[in-house]
């Protein structure tokens, strides 16, 4: 699969006069998992949206292929793109299966093929029995699982997970970790935001922290040490 190194130069974002953050240089590459932290409202969601090309920064650039306005007018992206998972996922009106198939429609030709991949993904998150239910009957955690399956089937090169384990129980997180690990092995990059440390954030070997409008990279050793401390005292 194709591997992408994302490189951002001099990105800053401001709303009216308030500077949310300024990041002079940012680079991350294949097979990396990054844990992004920071308090409420520091701009984690905004940063992820910028990195996925959904939002444009006030200044600066991100190197994203096939995200140009003009290209998207005619061409669907298919597999191996950059996927942003919303903090509260949006489900399209339809069945669970329809939702998982959504991105596959642009990537795979055959109906049957799409269906079988989608069912596999649903089995991975343990929701295959709900495949034909309408999404309005799902619980919050189940929706997050569907969102994960929907992203995973596309085997994205970069997956930006915004609080994607927020309302999940332990078992769901375990399943999510399996999918995340699978993507990492395929050469994807993950960026994970979370306010709690859990099995998913434990995958990460790099940590970014946004505070005071700056992005600080913490050394991975520090993270592990902090982990240990947490377990020791907690």
């Amino acid at each position, binding site marked *: 699969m194709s591997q992408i190194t994302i490189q951002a130069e001099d990105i800053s974002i401001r709303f009216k006069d308030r500077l949310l953050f300024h990041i002079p240089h940012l680079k991350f590459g294949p097979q990396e998992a990054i844990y992004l932290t920071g308090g409420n409202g520091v701009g984690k969601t905004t940063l992820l*949206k910028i990195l996925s090309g*959904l939002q444009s920064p006030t200044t600066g650039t991100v190197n994203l292929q096939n995200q140009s*306005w003009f290209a998207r007018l005619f061409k*669907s992206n298919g597999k191996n793109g950059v996927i942003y998972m*919303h903090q509260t996922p949006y489900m399209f009106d339809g069945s669970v299966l329809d939702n998982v198939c959504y991105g596959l429609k642009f990537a795979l030709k055959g109906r049957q093929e799409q269906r079988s991949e989608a069912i596999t993904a649903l089995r991975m998150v343990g929701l295959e029995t709900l495949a034909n239910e309408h999404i309005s009957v799902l619980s919050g955690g189940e929706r997050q699982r569907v969102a994960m399956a929907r992203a995973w089937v596309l085997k994205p090169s970069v997956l930006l997970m915004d609080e994607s384990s927020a309302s999940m129980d332990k078992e769901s997180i375990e399943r999510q970790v399996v999918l995340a690990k699978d993507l990492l092995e395929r050469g994807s990059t993950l960026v994970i935001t979370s306010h709690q440390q859990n099995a998913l954030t434990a995958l990460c070997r790099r940590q970014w922290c946004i505070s005071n409008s700056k992005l600080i990279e913490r050394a991975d050793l520090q993270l592990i040490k902090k982990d240990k401390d947490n377990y020791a005292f907690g």
Partner: protein
Amino acid sequence: MNIWQTTQDAVQLLFSGDMALWGIVGVSFSVSLLAITLVLVPALVIAFALAYGKFPGRWLILSLFNTCQSIPTVVIGLLLYMTLSRAGPLGDWQMLFTQKAMILGQMMVCFPILVSMMHAAFQNSDRRAWETALTLGASLPRALLSLMWECRFPLLAAVIAAFSRIITEVGCSMMVGGNILNSTRNIPTAIALESSKGAFAQGVALGMVLLILALGLNFLLSIARGKAHLRTN
């Protein structure tokens, strides 16, 4: 005037296969359907841009469209009449008193309604739907289609409102069409003319057709939009 007698005559007229009557119905529907089809896509795109775009003057444009909705159709007819008449700027087109002129007039009548109601639909939609579609790889037109599917109920309500407005509209059709039999006489202008002559049966019959076809159209649309589920998130 005996209402019961008139209704009976009207029903009889409907079932007797009166060519003049069905000709009028045909003109009405072909003109209005063509008019709304021609403006549907531009109205959709503009409504979407007004809701999702970020450009200065958005609110001004929107208020203009909202204001245009309340212009009486006769006034639109009058403006079009002046433009298309011999001495007018587009007099060379020789379009006055043709179906083309009626179509143009009805397009002008329903365009602002469509834009403003579809804008309301998009404005009420969830931005995440658009973003999710794009991030999962949809091209811009495909993402727009998905978004349209998500708000199909208010969008179809907009189409129905606009279509009802132009199929029942008298003023503009009368001004620029001229109510010529077999050419520009449509249901509303025929009703106006016949009743002014004191012949009510045809008017009532045409009214019934309008009602039945409106009913049929709405049934068709409710089948097309599929099952309805309330959002729980």
